[in-house]
């Protein structure tokens, strides 16, 4: 199918793809995201190809290479359809047996099937594995069916039908109303209602408006955005076109982190395909609506996740943040009204238009609707991408889906929201997760990082780690953030070396409050959170470091006692403080 010039051609195209595509008896799906490749998925693909050739099975067995399925811990993994048999942690040597038994003889190989580490029970089918079964995968389920290099796969998954509906059956105002009444809130962290944001931008009188997809996912331990872009890039593009139509923008930008090369590659391929088929550019699907997308690769500055810095970076300048107001909706890119949403927010848009606000708003809690993808990582048994309805309890995510703590250790805390968020202790495991509950507990949703820690993680060292990060990534424009984070970092370094003083806790709290109140942008305003939340929930641990010069987690090296010795704090050198 070449250029689509009429909405009805979508259905024709889909029918033609179905007709032309061979229907193999079996299809082997290989998860080939970044984690998959790092764990050897390319070797599995090669072994599969070799074995299929050797047995002359290319005609009867399909091989589908997809992006990330979410179960990163057990990569490389495959799923065999139509049965849905799942094999994880495969080695190329396993492949001949997989073909022999599961493809040719329809048998499950018990030794390769997923085994629940707690009960010892085997789960041969992907859909039965607790990690998958307990999720609600509205955004991620299609990842199993889509080769991100082929727009045809997205078309088969009902792709671009929401766009057709928006362009031809709805006015721009109706689209905004639909998104608003669905209750969608920004997935980048702040949780601002998406429909309201779109309306603000649309209301501004201007010749030119822009929309931006913020894919500068920089929080360490957070990677759902790059997975969506790598596995189902068209869902983001479709969401953006619908948003542009609603807002009245003719140009969009996707700002992607350079540290996610696979995401950059896949979104570029998808954008080019969408252009080729008349889904981007002039007269989309034959309508009177024109819109195109540019892709901008970031250059390794965390601050660019902050919207005013991101816009400065797109303009080719140093990415320093600026005061708001004016908000981007009033004066954004090159001074024009601009709407910025995060990758996951955009990916939710086609879903809402396709299935309706009423359906969408039934999922989640009264104030936080829909699902949220979390990157469940750290000391967790089954790490990966987890999509659950808003309002799911931390305990359900960590224990029922994630399988609990690794290596039989004890849960200590979970960090949410990255460097802007905080640590939640065991008492809060039954907290239902939504935007507001997390803020109340001293953390934030952030973009969905969830880093689980056990007794071998030192909370003071963790706070130091985050402060080091924000201090390095501060753009340097405002004093509270530039100098304040340095001061907090230096105090934390002293404490982890056994040179802490009792007054340090009060100093950290006071500095933290000042930085939060006085910083120019979100980076600085939230930078003290990891420190303040660990002081709030793990005060004893700080005391232990300061008073007893002990690190029970045995992380702070200067505080680990050698046998027969007490811990010896390093001598504090009298040194003149350097001023910034």
């Amino acid at each position: 199918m070449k250029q689509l010039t009429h909405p009805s051609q979508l259905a024709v195209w889909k029918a033609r793809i179905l007709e032309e595509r061979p229907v193999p008896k079996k299809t082997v799906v290989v998860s080939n995201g970044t984690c998959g490749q790092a764990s050897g998925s390319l070797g599995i693909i090669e072994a599969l190809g070799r074995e299929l050739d050797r047995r002359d099975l290319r005609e009867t067995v399909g091989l589908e290479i997809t992006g990330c399925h979410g179960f990163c811990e057990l990569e490389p993994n495959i799923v065999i359809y139509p049965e849905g048999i799942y094999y994880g942690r495969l080695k190329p040597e396993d492949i001949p047996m997989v073909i022999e038994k599961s493809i040719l003889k329809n048998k499950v190989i018990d030794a390769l099937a997923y085994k629940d580490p707690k009960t010892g029970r085997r789960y041969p089918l992907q859909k039965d594995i607790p990690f998958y079964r307990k999720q609600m995968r509205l955004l991620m389920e299609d990842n199993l069916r889509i080769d991100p290099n082929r727009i045809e796969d997205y078309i088969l998954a009902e792709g671009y039908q929401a766009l057709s509906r928006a362009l031809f059956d709805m006015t721009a105002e109706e689209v905004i109303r639909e998104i608003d009444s669905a209750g969608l809130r920004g997935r980048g962290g702040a949780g601002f209602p998406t429909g309201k944001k779109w309306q603000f931008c649309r209301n501004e009188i201007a010749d030119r408006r822009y929309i931006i997809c913020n894919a500068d996912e920089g929080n360490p331990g957070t990677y759902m955005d790059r997975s969506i872009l790598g596995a189902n890039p068209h869902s983001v593009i479709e969401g953006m076109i619908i948003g542009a139509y609603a807002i009245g923008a003719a140009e969009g930008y996707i700002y992607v982190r350079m540290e996610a090369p696979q995401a950059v590659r896949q979104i570029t391929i998808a954008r080019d395909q969408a252009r080729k088929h008349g889904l981007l550019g002039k007269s989309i699907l034959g309508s009177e609506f024109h819109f195109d997308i540019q892709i901008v690769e970031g250059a390794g500055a965390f601050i660019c996740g902050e919207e005013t810095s991101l816009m400065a970076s797109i303009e080719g300048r140093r990415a320093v943040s600026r005061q708001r107001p004016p908000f981007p909706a009033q004066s954004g890119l090159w001074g024009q009204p601009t709407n910025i949403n995060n990758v996951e927010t955009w990916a939710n848009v086609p879903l809402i238009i396709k299935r309706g606000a009423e359906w969408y708003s039934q999922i989640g809690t009264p104030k936080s609707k829909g699902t949220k993808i979390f990157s469940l990582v750290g000391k967790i048994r089954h790490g990966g991408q987890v999509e659950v309805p808003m309002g799911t309890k931390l305990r359900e995510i960590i224990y029922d889906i994630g399988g609990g703590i690794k290596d039989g250790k004890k849960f200590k805390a979970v960090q949410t929201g990255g460097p802007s968020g905080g640590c939640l202790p065991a008492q809060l495991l039954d907290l239902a997760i939504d935007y507001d509950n997390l803020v109340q507990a001293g953390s934030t949703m952030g973009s969905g990082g969830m880093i689980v820690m056990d007794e071998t993680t030192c909370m003071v060292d963790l706070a130091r780690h985050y402060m080091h990060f924000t201090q390095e990534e501060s753009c340097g424009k405002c004093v509270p953030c530039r100098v304040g984070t340095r001061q907090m970092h230096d105090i934390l370094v002293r404490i982890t070396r056994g040179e802490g003083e009792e007054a340090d806790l009060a100093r950290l709290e006071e500095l933290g409050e000042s930085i939060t109140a006085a910083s120019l942008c979100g980076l600085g305003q939230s930078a003290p959170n990891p420190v303040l939340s660990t002081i709030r929930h793990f005060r004893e641990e700080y005391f232990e470091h300061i008073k007893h010069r002990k690190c029970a987690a045995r992380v702070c090296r200067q505080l680990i006692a050698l046998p027969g010795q007490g811990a010896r704090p390093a001598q504090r050198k009298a040194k003149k403080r350097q001023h910034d």
Partner: protein
Amino acid sequence: MDDLLREFSREQKDLTQILHKVQAEYGYIPAQAIRRVAEHLNTTENEVYGVLTFYKAYRLQPRGKHLVTVCQGTSCHIRGGAGVFDEMKKELGVEPGETTPDRMFSLETVNCLGCCAIGPTVVVNGTYYSHVSVEDVHSIIAEYRKRK
């Protein structure tokens, strides 16, 4: 350089993308390139230099034959990444941002590579190593030393 610049507009918005291209071509941003880019965009060398030093991505020195990147993300950190990083500094005998005297290896850090469930992660020339332990560091580097 002329061919490279021809692909881009003369507006400042293309500056970071031009610098990416220059670095992909030369492995770093040579001083002459700064002048040429400034001319192309009708701006000052100062401006180009200011932008490129703001971002972590751009290097002003050529790097070694092999680029070793150690992830410093939180998930890698609590899974033993700090030890891996120290061992890597010891193994190569350089600090992050530096290149070994024989120009074989450059060491860099990254704040997150987005494969957090399989960390600690090390990347050498684009090849990802997952679940890296302190003991693995020597053998990973030895593999590249052999290649010369």
